[in-house]
């Protein structure tokens, strides 16, 4: 027995991490759908889900249950095996990639030398899910949607690849952890050195996740629902899960590469160290909101569960924030060698990482509420005629800038901004060429 425990011991911690990340991502995916509905609703002067739980907080669960209960329809003439397989591929690809994301300096599932390449590889497997699903459905709309989707994904993947190369020039490594550490060491997030690459990555990320204004594959006004038109019930929601997981994934990649990953804003400025307490402040604010809403609901029987849930959430948030503020000296052993607030320090990385990811996700949702949709040829033209040349130009100018800074002894930011200016010039020329 002890032997078994001894052999398992090195695997225990990673296993716990795997489970935490896995469940965390699943939860965030579920609530991302809720957040999208809520945010879109408020952009559109309406309320969004309000009935299931206070402010519709339990809506994701209700949605999941509803989808579980839906009839599972496979159109006649569909290729059965492929039809069943396709959404599974999409889900696996989208979720597996999270094993390479460093959420915090001490909290990631694994870190490999070619982390970024593996990420691209795994997430590119998701394309197969889409194309096979559309083909297997035996229907015009899904096939057209799948072909469009694949053409779109591969086109923007090229631009994405070049944007990543620009960031790698600065980082000098493919390991995701080391990329963040490089930003820590250089004391600047790469977005400030490589704004064009960041922009390209951002646009490509929207296109890669089929989000508005690039949501043509599932443009409901043209292709009904694109490649998953014929999917129903939970099979449909697998695609849905994969899409939202992919959204979180691309945001995580962008945050890791360009926004300093787990680093706090101004991590080096000691005067801003009070920012370390932001998680506590956020939790206290959330608790305050819960209590206020709780007392705004009428104190009648039918609202009792809602009120109790809000109360519980508020108390829970307060409890967690109290736990975060637990000083080290109250710990057994007096907390020798620990930081002043061990729990708070422990969650710093994850907190800042996820905050930046949520910022991205909010952007995705905001765009969806704002922009009309591109037409397919316009989308392809934007990709091939604009994004790719600009991305290539950016790689060239930035590598030149780095050499220049080394040969002439100029500061790196200055030369890189020079490079960026040159890239922007190319971009302006390309735009004019088109017009």
């Amino acid at each position, binding site marked *: 027995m002890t032997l078994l425990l001894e052999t398992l011991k090195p695997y225990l911690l990673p296993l716990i991490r795997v489970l935490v990340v896995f469940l965390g991502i699943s939860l965030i995916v579920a609530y991302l759908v809720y957040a999208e509905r809520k945010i879109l609703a408020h952009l559109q002067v309406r309320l969004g889900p309000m009935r299931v739980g206070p402010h519709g907080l339990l809506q994701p669960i209700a949605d999941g249950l509803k989808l579980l209960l839906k009839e599972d329809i496979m159109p006649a003439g569909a*290729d059965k095996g*492929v039809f069943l397989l396709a959404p599974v591929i999409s889900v696996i690809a989208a979720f597996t990639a999270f094993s390479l994301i460093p959420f915090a300096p001490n909290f990631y599932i694994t870190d490999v*030398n070619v982390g970024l390449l593996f990420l691209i590889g795994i997430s*590119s*497997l998701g394309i*197969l899910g889409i*194309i096979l699903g559309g083909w297997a459905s035996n229907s015009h709309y899904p096939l057209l949607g799948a072909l469009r989707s694949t053409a779109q994904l591969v086109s923007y993947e090229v631009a994405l690849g070049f944007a990543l190369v620009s960031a790698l020039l600065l980082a000098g490594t493919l390991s995701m952890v080391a990329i963040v550490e490089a930003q820590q060491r250089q004391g600047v997030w790469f977005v400030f050195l490589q704004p064009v690459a960041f922009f390209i990555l951002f646009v490509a990320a929207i296109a890669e996740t089929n989000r508005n204004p690039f949501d043509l594959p599932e443009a409901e006004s043209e292709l009904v629902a694109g490649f998953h038109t014929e999917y129903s019930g939970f099979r449909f929601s697998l695609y849905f899960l994969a899409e939202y997981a992919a959204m979180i994934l691309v945001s995580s990649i962008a945050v890791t590469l360009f926004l300093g990953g787990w680093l706090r804003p101004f991590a080096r400025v000691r005067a801003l160290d009070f920012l370390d307490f932001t998680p506590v402040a956020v939790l206290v604010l959330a608790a305050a909101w819960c209590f206020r809403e709780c007392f705004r609901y009428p104190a009648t029987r039918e609202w009792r569960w809602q009120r109790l849930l809000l109360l519980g959430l508020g108390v829970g948030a307060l409890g967690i924030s109290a736990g975060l503020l637990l000083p080290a000296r109250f710990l057994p052993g007096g907390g020798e060698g620990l930081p002043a607030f061990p729990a708070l320090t422990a969650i710093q990385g994850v907190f800042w990482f996820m905050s930046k990811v949520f910022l991205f996700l909010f952007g995705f949702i905001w765009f969806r509420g704002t922009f009309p949709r591109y037409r397919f040829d316009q989308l392809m033209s934007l990709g091939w005629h604009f994004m790719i040349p600009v991305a290539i130009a950016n790689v060239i100018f930035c590598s030149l800038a780095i050499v220049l800074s080394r040969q002439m002894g100029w500061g790196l930011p200055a030369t890189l901004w020079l490079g960026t200016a040159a890239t922007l010039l190319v971009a302006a020329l390309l735009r004019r060429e088109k017009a």
Partner: protein
Amino acid sequence: MMFAQGSFYVLAAVAVVSALLVITRRNPVHSAIYLIVTLLSVALLYLQLQAEFIAAVQIILYIGGIMVLFLFVIMLVKLDVALRQPPFNQQWWVAGAAALVLAVELVGVIYLGRGTAALPQAPPGSLQPNTELIGRTLYQNYMLPFEIASLLLLVAMVGAVLMARRKAS
């Protein structure tokens, strides 16, 4: 060690079996799916040999790129028509002869070279940062092949476009 060997045999078996399925399935899309499985297990084999970069490239290029191209091409042909045709019409004996020659050649090479070139062991222990190694080798020792590769890509680009056009006219 046991684990490593066991996983090698599993992966190798998966690769071989799905490769066989690739050529026996009649539906080209099913063949493509089995080909993906083969490529994936080969990628894992690379990984076992500590060739991380090659493994990643295998996944990105072969599965994420070339297989997508294959699926596109399959979707461009009339499947039901293709299915009705006998798969290896007329040319099966040419293919058979070619396969036989290749097999004899392979066995011969292994047999003749058994003393001269010992199969190298996979590097043990910690991983080399092999992207960096490849970078250095490729850009310092193999400069010319690298530049020629770009010419090759250029030819592929031109070829693709010209082919599409020639058939059009």
